[in-house]
């Protein structure tokens, strides 16, 4: 059935300044959402709260399966992931970066080898598998971040500005990977972008962040 997510009336303020004002939405399993809005509208804050990176001041973030709300524990966290604008490259090879999520889950080395190679081929980095990840270009680094997330097969996948500051070629590559994920339909994908055209290209459901609240476009 997959994970559904209900965000109910969440609020968040930083230094007394209200960023989210009673944000609510129901995200259904296996669907793709595009959340757009201008810079500073609170999109990234919403994503951090919804992806359990930090708690809201008020309101609730409820992940549920078959109608049953799940506790915010490690087990749930391992079913969701997010790709942030700055991915945080580990100072090791491209292969080890991608294998990280599987290694910390205690997967067997044969499985890790096979899955990492498969995902690296998907993002077009298989030829750089043994290279230090810090030496990658910005476009390749973004694809590395995508590969690190893809390899753990998240059921809910949040992407925050996945093509920010990228050239058109890398933007297209990344969009194609996201579109391929959509076809599989296994994951709920939520793409946060400030580009309305990109939201249109990627999302089945278009949402806008306005005055600290989510509204349909």
């Amino acid at each position, binding site marked *: 059935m997959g994970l559904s997510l209900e965000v109910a009336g969440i609020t968040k303020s930083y230094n007394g300044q209200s960023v989210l004002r009673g944000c609510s939405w129901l995200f259904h399993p296996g669907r793709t959402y595009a959340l757009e809005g201008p810079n500073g509208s609170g999109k990234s804050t919403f994503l951090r709260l919804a*992806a359990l*990176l930090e708690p809201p001041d008020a309101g609730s973030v409820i992940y549920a399966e078959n109608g049953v709300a799940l506790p915010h524990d*490690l087990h749930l*966290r*391992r079913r969701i*992931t*997010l*790709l*942030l604008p*700055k*991915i*945080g490259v*580990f*100072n090791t090879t491209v292969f080890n970066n991608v294998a*990280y*999520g599987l290694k*910390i*889950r205690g997967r067997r080395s044969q499985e890790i080898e096979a899955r990492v190679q498969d995902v690296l081929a998907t993002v077009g980095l298989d030829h750089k598998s043994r290279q230090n990840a810090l030496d990658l270009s910005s476009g390749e680094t973004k694809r590395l971040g995508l590969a*690190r*997330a893809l390899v*753990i097969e998240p059921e809910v996948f949040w992407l925050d500005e996945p093509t920010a500051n990228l050239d058109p070629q890398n933007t297209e590559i990344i969009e194609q990977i996201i579109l391929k994920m959509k076809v599989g339909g296994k994951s709920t994908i939520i793409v946060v972008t400030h580009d309305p055209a990109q939201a249109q290209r990627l999302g089945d459901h278009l949402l806008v962040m306005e005055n600290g609240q989510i509204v349909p476009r």
Partner: protein
Amino acid sequence: MPAACHSLHLMDSIIQGFLGAFRLIIALDPELRRIILLSLQVSGTALVVATCLGLPVGALLAQRRVPLRGPILSLLSTGMGLPPVVVGLFFYLLLSRSGPFGILELLYTPTAMIIVQTVLAFPIVASLSHAAIAKVDPVIRQAAFTLGATPLQEVLTVVREARYGIMAGVMAGLGRVMAEVGAILIVGGNIAGYTRVITTTIVLQTSMGEFELAIALGIVLLLIALGINLGLRFFQRAGGVRSGVILWD
């Protein structure tokens, strides 16, 4: 004329000392070997203990909100420059027969030497580990979290990112204890075949005017120092560490 004679005699002693020293090194003299091995054993053990204690302390201070964190860090920084003779004196008083730990009968044993060297290396390893771990970009920890790491795995990921800086700290600690003489002389007693190490032997032989063994050990110590510095430079370069560290006291 007497001054000139004295100079010639000294030059002759130095030349003879160097020739004798090379003979000892080439022949792998048993006494030379024993002293070097004991030095490495004492300093190596002290370094392992200091690392096992210092690394978690450094990691904790860098990653958790610890009460009195500022004063603890100041204390560690001060500890990096601890005068070895003062540490030696303090532990002599603790371990001497009439001291609070006299019953353990550790004075004039390699264990006492390991304890004082651990105390000298610990602040260096803890302080430099803290600096290296604190420098790791917070997004690394965030990345580990988003990929499903447990809190312990997050900490280990950050520590692994700081590995070159940590190794530089460990090498600096090794440099400090290998070159140290005051503290181990006081608590070790420089007993031949038991607590006599490179630095204490150099002091003793020089005071007796017997330079062969002293020079041979001096050359070995310099080679060890060179090795430590090369290791330190490697780790500093590999980790992009630019700041200098105290290597020798």
